[in-house]
């Protein structure tokens, strides 16, 4: 009953035929039409391992981690797909339906103004996410530091489940905030905890209702964090905290805690399973810390931070504030190779993946790439049955000789904000796969400054026909109307990322088809997308700059 035989799978590594291969699967012509019009071909993510080929394998062409799935469940997926395909169905969403999908997770925060006193360099931010996985594996966080100055914003792209991304999104900012706290504040906090007094709040979160925190694990997480600050108190170097160092320490410490918690386990079986899931899944993180004109980006993995700069002529350009940690980054490949013996050089990076499996070269969790084989076996065997049944956790990466192969240490970039730096975009690779950063800068820039900045058209001496002009004007109008539809820059960006046609304008039909894809298909055409757009306050930045001069 399963129409795709394993022998065909290697062919999928060739990009273009990928959708074509699905056609025998799906006889419904409606779907084939969608496939032919909307399929993105992310050949760089395709990976097929010969020794995986015999197992039932999900068509996760874009999966960050090539994963083994529970066979029964996977089998059902195919059945489901067939059922679905044999039922003729119209793929059409009305504009309001499209909007309700796009806006379901949008969130905006405006920094409150205080009569010109202590005004922030951040005006506010818009964030949003659009799931492709079910459930979504991306997470986002935003918070204002209360005991120090500054604002923290981050996007987290999970793989092999969402547990790790969830844990990182809850915990990382506390680690960063604690790393930044001066000695006295740490003491104050410790004393308060010690004597059972009310704790000074460290962070003010800016959360969408869907952004949940795990209640069960909060005690465990808190005790790990307390251990961290107690160590910081003991270590008291007396030096002022350097943001870059704090970020690096926080990232490394959290990853370390995740690893330790999984090794130690927890008497509560639910928590025990949770910490194991966190450790065995993975997450990338891209975090921004903004304090006045000082912008720090700490990045681990392949999410990306991009600065939108308005040039003097009003046009928009993009400045990367992070480096992707993946096979496309020569320095990363070089680093990984440096860290392991020459004998492993060939097996370290295969098919653009770490050990032929993992796309990001740095990540939280993913203890399969960090622990020794013995440790992995011990933990899995002593772990709960669910873990034992999972083929993925039991599976040891090939050519696994000198762990760890993976680190959570971030690369930190410091940037002094200038008045022409208008906004920052933090987004998971779901966005960057579909859009060039230059387009992102233009779309957000035009959105934030309003449509009146749209350059007027002049025919001049060019040969333009009435029909061409009409087409061009209609697109421009559509662009304007799509701007008016969105109150959130991140939503606007997602609308473009998903609905853009070859002209770079939002095509409602395409948008509607992309969003009406069933869960199983959605992942093949796009990844989870999570975006935070931070808008800077040019006046404050200008004033700060002048003060410094």
């Amino acid at each position, binding site marked *: 009953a399963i129409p795709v035989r394993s022998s065909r799978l290697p062919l999928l590594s060739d990009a273009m035929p990928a959708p074509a291969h699905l056609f025998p699967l799906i006889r419904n012509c409606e779907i084939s039409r969608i496939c032919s019009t909307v399929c993105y071909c992310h050949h760089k993510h395709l990976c097929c391992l010969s020794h995986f080929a015999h197992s039932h394998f999900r068509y996760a062409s874009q999966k960050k981690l090539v994963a083994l799935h529970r066979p029964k469940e996977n089998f059902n997926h195919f059945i489901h797909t067939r059922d679905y395909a044999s039922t003729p169905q119209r793929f059409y969403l009305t504009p309001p339906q499209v909007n309700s999908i796009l806006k379901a997770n949008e969130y905006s925060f405006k920094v409150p103004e205080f009569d010109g006193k202590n005004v922030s360099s951040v005006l506010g931010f818009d964030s949003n996410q659009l799931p492709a996985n079910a459930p979504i594996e991306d997470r986002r966080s935003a918070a204002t530091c209360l005991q120090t100055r500054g604002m923290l914003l981050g996007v987290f792209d999970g793989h092999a489940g969402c547990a790790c991304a969830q844990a990182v999104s809850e915990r990382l900012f506390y680690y960063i905030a604690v790393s930044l706290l001066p000695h006295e504040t740490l003491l104050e906090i410790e004393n308060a905890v010690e004597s059972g007094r009310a704790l000074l709040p460290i962070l003010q979160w800016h959360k969408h209702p869907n952004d949940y925190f795990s209640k069960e694990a909060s005690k465990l997480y808190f005790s790990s964090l307390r251990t961290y600050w107690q160590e910081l108190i003991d270590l008291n170097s007396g030096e002022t905290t350097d943001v870059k160092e704090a970020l690096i320490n926080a990232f490394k410490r959290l990853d370390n805690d995740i690893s330790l918690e999984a090794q130690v386990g927890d008497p509560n079986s639910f928590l025990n399973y949770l910490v194991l899931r966190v450790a065995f899944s993975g997450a990338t993180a891209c975090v921004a810390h903004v304090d006045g004109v000082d912008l720090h980006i700490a990045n681990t993995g392949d999410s990306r931070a991009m600065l939108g700069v308005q040039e003097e002529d009003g046009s928009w350009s993009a400045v990367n504030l992070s480096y992707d940690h993946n096979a496309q980054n020569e320095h990363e490949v070089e680093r990984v190779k440096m860290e392991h013996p020459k004998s492993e050089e060939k097996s370290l990076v295969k098919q653009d993946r770490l050990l032929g499996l993992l796309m990001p070269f740095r990540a939280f969790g993913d203890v399969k790439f960090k622990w020794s084989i013995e440790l992995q076996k011990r933990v899995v065997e002593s772990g709960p049955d669910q873990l034992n049944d999972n083929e993925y956790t039991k599976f040891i990466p090939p050519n696994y000789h000198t762990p760890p192969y993976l680190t959570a240490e971030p690369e930190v970039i410091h940037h002094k904000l200038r008045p022409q730096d208008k906004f920052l975009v933090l987004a998971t690779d779901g966005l960057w796969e579909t859009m060039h950063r230059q387009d992102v800068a233009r779309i957000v820039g035009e959105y934030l400054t309003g449509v009146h900045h749209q350059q*007027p058209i002049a*025919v001049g001496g060019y040969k*333009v*026909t*009435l*029909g061409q002009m*009409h087409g061009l*004007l*209609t697109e421009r109008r559509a662009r304007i109307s799509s701007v008016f539809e969105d109150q959130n820059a991140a939503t606007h960006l997602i609308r473009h990322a998903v609905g853009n046609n070859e002209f770079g304008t939002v095509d409602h039909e395409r948008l509607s088809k992309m969003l009406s894809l069933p869960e199983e298909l959605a992942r093949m055409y796009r990844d989870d997308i999570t975006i935070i757009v931070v808008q800077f306050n040019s006046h404050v930045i200008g004033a700060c700059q002048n003060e410094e001069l």
Partner: protein
Amino acid sequence: AAGMFLRLLSDVRWRAANPKWRRMTCSRRSTSSTAEPHPVSLPAQAQVVICGGGIMGTSVAYHLSKMGWKDIVLLEQGRLAAGTTRFCAGIVSTARHVSIELKMADYSNKLYQQLEQETGVKTGYVKTGSISLAQTQDRLISLKRIASSLNVMGIPCEIITPKQVAQLHPLINIHDLVGAMYVPEDALVSSANVSLALATAASRNGVQIHERTSVSHVSVQKGRVTGVETDRGQIQCQYFINCAGQWAYELGHSGEEPVNIPLHACEHFYLLTHPLKEPLASNLPTIVDPDGRIYIRNWQGGILSGGFEKNPKPLFTEGRNQLEIQNLQEDWDHFEPLLSALLRRMPDLEALQIMQLVNCPESFTPDMRCIMGESPTVRGYFVLAGMNSAGISYGGGAGKYLAEWMVNGYPSENVWPLDLKRFGTLQSSRTFLRHRVMEVMPLMCDLKVPRWDFQTGRQLRTSPLYDRLDAQGARWMEKHGFERVKYFVPPGKDLLDLDQSKTFYKPDWFDIVGSEVKCCKEAVCVIDMSSFTKFEISSTGDQALENLQYLFSNDLDVPVGHVVHTGMLNEKGGYENDCSIARLSKRSFFMISPTDQQVHCWAWLKNRLPDDSTLTMEDVTWKYTALNLIGPRAVDVLSELSYAPITPEHFPSLFCKEMSVGYANGIRVMSITHTGEPGFMLYIPIEYALHVYNEVMNMGQKYGIRNAGYYALRSLRIEKFFAFWGQDLDAFTTPMECGREFQVKLEKGMQFVGQEALLEQKQNGVYKRFTMFILEDHDTDMDLWPWWGEPIFRNGRYVGKTTSSAYSYTLERHVCLGFVQHFDEKTGEELVVTTDFINQGEYEIDIAGQRFQAKAKLYPFSSLFTHRRRKDEVELSGYQRE
């Protein structure tokens, strides 16, 4: 003169050397690169100075010089025909709603046709015809109405089917059309060349033309033009003509004595394309698609297409100089809806290559009609401007009428709808103009339905009762800036939205007005009529009486307390104004005129009354609130409120008394209602307005009093055969022609204006006769309603047009008022209209091509109504136009 003409030619030659100019005009003159000629010095004086060398200035110069005025100087700040005229689309279209505009366009067309032959200047005149498309049935009705008017004027015109449209024009998509109107004699011209041809002819007739000369201001002494100041010196003159187009407003305000010329420019876009593969024939008809808001004409093998968008861009609100006109930007995004409409209408044009999007500002006026005539404040200051983008269609006719006006004292047609004096200072606010033209420009293409009210520039002048009335459901219309009630929507009743209420059929307020009329007939109603123009004229001696006796046709030497209905006639006996005058005392008079007479009547009297400090005239319009108490129970209400005897013995009809109403003293009460119904007009000093209104409403409750509006008033006056000035009566209508001989005292012992003309008419008979028509086979619910301007047919032959109409709730029939003429069957010559001629005919009224039988009457249905004394029946007056 010959030298001057040579100079003009050298100008033209210079222009031909300018490549930009050559492209626009396709001048076929030699392209010698002569440098600019040395400017000829300006004359020290001239009879007439015209400012503006566009189509208007040159047309006036042409016609004035043809009529024998030779001492004329035309000044142009840039080059001849270099402003809006140069950019104009060059479409001569006669399909106009207003009859005087139609006549101007028809004359222009005929003038341009022979202009090339007359002057030798190529005008590019091509008779292409024009097709106006209808996408909806309502639009077709609108076109049919125009077609009826064109046909009776002898202009060929027919309503055609979409299939016929396709035969006339190969590119048109006809799938969404319901019909069209074809006017085969409409034409295309090169507007700049027409203007040059007119200038050439004028120059030959002696008109001096000076380019590159700008007028800085006009000098005025004692309310008369004495000269103009230019950047090249001064010219003394008797007459000045402001033909400065969109700069006319600024020029009008540049002098010490401002002349208000209410117009405002808007950007106007049209598209030029390269030729089609198979170039379009130059005689292909022009397409007007009002539902798509566009026009399309052939242009050098390609097309020229523009339109009137819904969201116009007004410009030069702060006033700018002409240099900026060259730098106006193309705005494709703004043009997009029009381009879409064009490609929908002619889908085959997709592959056609764009040449240019031209941005050419056009000036628009507050009521969509052009502005001509003499300033009410400065004598000798004439204006011709504000063409609402139809400059080339009106150019010839407008120039002719203004020339006649100056030479003969008045044009050969009634131009009141275009008269500058229909506006006052209140329309000269820049903000008002900016807002209003943004409404007017889209209206160029909107459906013109009866009883349309402007939505912008409202609530400017209001009665003190405005809020009270508004809270009671008043729906408002505007006249001369004054808010007036149309009718009152009863609580709990909803009317249609503004857009949906547009109809040529029975309107949604029909029953509402019906009940107001019923209340006027059976009980008593209050109508706020404060908008009427009110003057007080008084003197220390008998000067007031003497002068008024000369200026008005009826006998004003009546006992104090009497009210006289009288015409203010011109020399030809025509109505310049129709008013009621109350003699307040031996030496003072209170004069009530229609609302829009405020400027015209003031100027007319000012110019004719002696400049004498013992004789004073004051505009007291703003001082009084006027309440009209109509109905059989009005007398009861008033007597209870005043404790004064109001019986006919004490207060006969056409009487005026100052009395107290409620607590308020000094209320002028007149026993007139402007409708023929019994009742009173109360002229209340404004501070008492609310008090008196409240008292009247409270006291009236037991008599069934209610508010009413002007629609009820209109129905009442039309079924009583009352003529209204501005609607039915104009400067070309005499009292004899509308059965108002009794309002003229031919033997009052002294001469009065118009007396001779009236005596002659009395002797020889009249050539037109105001007649009342009752529609016989008209179904009020199902048939199109009459409006005004419908052709009247007698025994199948056209004899005239209606001037107003209303549904009579009493007769349960439609009543149309209009003039019947008698044309000789063979020669078309106008013959005397006799009573027998009126009574012995079978009549039909043509409503949008459909004819309805009508019964003609020369006297109102007195038998239908209660019999009243003679004086009541002769109470004929009326002041508003619909």
